[in-house]
């Protein structure tokens, strides 16, 4: 087995580490890395005699819903989804996310697809993991141009859920709800805290014990490449081909 670990494999492994306490993880559209992470976590849970359900909306096989497209949102609102992943054209200091466009809405300069279900999911799923590969001052901004979903809410607002982590190509942050602020937790190899500060458009705390992201061990890597990769190729064939050549 080729022990060289691809960037995507590292990210999958990092995300899988965040799912070990979950009972049900759901993955939205266009998310091959979170999808692979969820299936990996499920496989590892099974080995430990623990049951983890994974719902991948983009797949027929791993989509457990039968009540139409609204079921994801109803299910999440019922508190039956522990972790969901959200991205963002922009993500800001207070974990606000923007999936709509840059510039002053409604006269945007650059229009992106739209907010999808983020404006509900962000409120009701206990662990939202923000995932955006590009780590740059243009993606991680001080203030988003449009709030598709706010990172924090008044205490009067019903909000059992919210942001817990932010993972990029370069770093893993934890979001502190009380301080309304991200805290740097892990660095990718070759990254430094100072480097991350330069590449991040917002101010963040630094955890006392910032560590380097650890590579997946051999056993995890085997499961990922032998078992998970073929599953992923069912619903993200291009991704699976690019990463694993299958």
């Amino acid at each position, binding site marked *: 087995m080729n022990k060289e670990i691809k960037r995507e494999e590292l990210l999958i492994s990092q995300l899988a580490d965040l799912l070990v306490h979950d009972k049900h993880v759901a993955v939205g*559209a*266009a998310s091959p890395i979170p999808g692979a992470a969820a299936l990996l976590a499920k496989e590892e849970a099974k080995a430990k005699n623990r049951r983890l359900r994974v719902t991948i909306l983009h797949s*027929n096989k791993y989509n457990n*819903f*039968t*009540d*139409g*497209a*609204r079921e*994801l*949102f*109803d299910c999440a*609102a019922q508190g039956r989804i522990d972790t969901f992943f959200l991205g963002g054209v922009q993500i800001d200091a207070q974990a606000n996310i923007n*999936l*709509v*466009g840059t510039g002053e*809405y*409604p*006269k*945007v*300069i*650059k*229009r*992106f*697809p*739209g*907010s*999808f*279900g*983020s*404006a*509900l*999911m*962000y*409120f*009701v799923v206990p662990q939202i993991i923000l995932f955006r590969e590009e780590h740059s001052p243009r993606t991680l901004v001080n203030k988003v141009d*449009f*709030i*598709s*979903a*706010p990172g924090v*809410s*008044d205490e*009067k*607002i*019903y*909000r059992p859920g919210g942001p817990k982590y932010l993972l990029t190509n370069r770093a893993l942050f934890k979001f502190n709800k009380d301080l309304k602020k991200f805290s740097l937790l892990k660095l990718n190899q070759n990254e430094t805290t100072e480097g991350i500060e330069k590449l991040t458009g917002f101010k963040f705390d630094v955890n006392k014990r910032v560590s380097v992201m650890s590579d997946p061990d051999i056993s995890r890597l085997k499961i990922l490449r032998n078992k998970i990769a073929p599953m992923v190729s069912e619903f993200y064939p*291009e991704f699976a081909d690019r990463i694993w050549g299958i």
Partner: protein
Amino acid sequence: MNSFDQLSLKELVNEVSNGSLLGIPADYSGVPMHFTKALIKKGVKNLRLYCLPLTTIQGDMLIGSGCVSEIEAAAVTLGEFGLAPQFSHAIEHNDLVIKDSTCPALHAQLQATEKSVPFMPLRGVIGSDIQKYRKDWQIIKNPMNSSGVKDEPILLLPAVQLDVFVFHAACADRNGNIQIGRRRELATLAHASKKVFVTVEKILNDDFFENELTAATCLPALYIDGISVIKNGAWPCALPGVYPADNKEIKKYSIAAKTKQGFDEYMKYSLS
């Protein structure tokens, strides 16, 4: 008499007038692409699109062809082939009004009509710019003494009734019942629409209601105002469980549609 109305493509297209509020199914629910092209060819104008909850090439083509004045959606995208270029262009140039929404709100507004109530409550969303810009949405303090938290702000969404909804499905039975499998958002769209038309791959000489399990897979004929048989009617989009998307064609479109000239050439070839 026939137990349902079978329409030609021409008759079907004539059911959509200028200015209609048209229901648009997501890419996973059976996109009526053949019908959409015929609609563009006819030159329909000022359509208002209601997407449940998103649209891909169908919406982008209609927008690029100048058929649309307003769109309500949670997303317009070509998925793995990137942004919807004609949509983005129209928004960036102020040629299109968008009512930005979020998936559960688009479902709830139709569910209000499904139940014939003037509004539906929804949690979440408050504090987003989506909510800020939606003047047709309202926030009230929870009025219920017997449920929820007193005075909790609750978002109310208006009932939306569609004028016309058109989708593509695998088959109808001889009584005009439509097989939709677990794409139950199609039922919500149909319930909330004044008129519903379906294009199907084929009409079977079966009765889906003869068996409880096949009955469970269908949208009853009573909601359907007409059916047209159109082979490959979703192409190049997928018809879930029947055929996959033609990704080559969608990629071709995604590249062509990046420029006005490319889009026009693509449409010329596509409509011919």
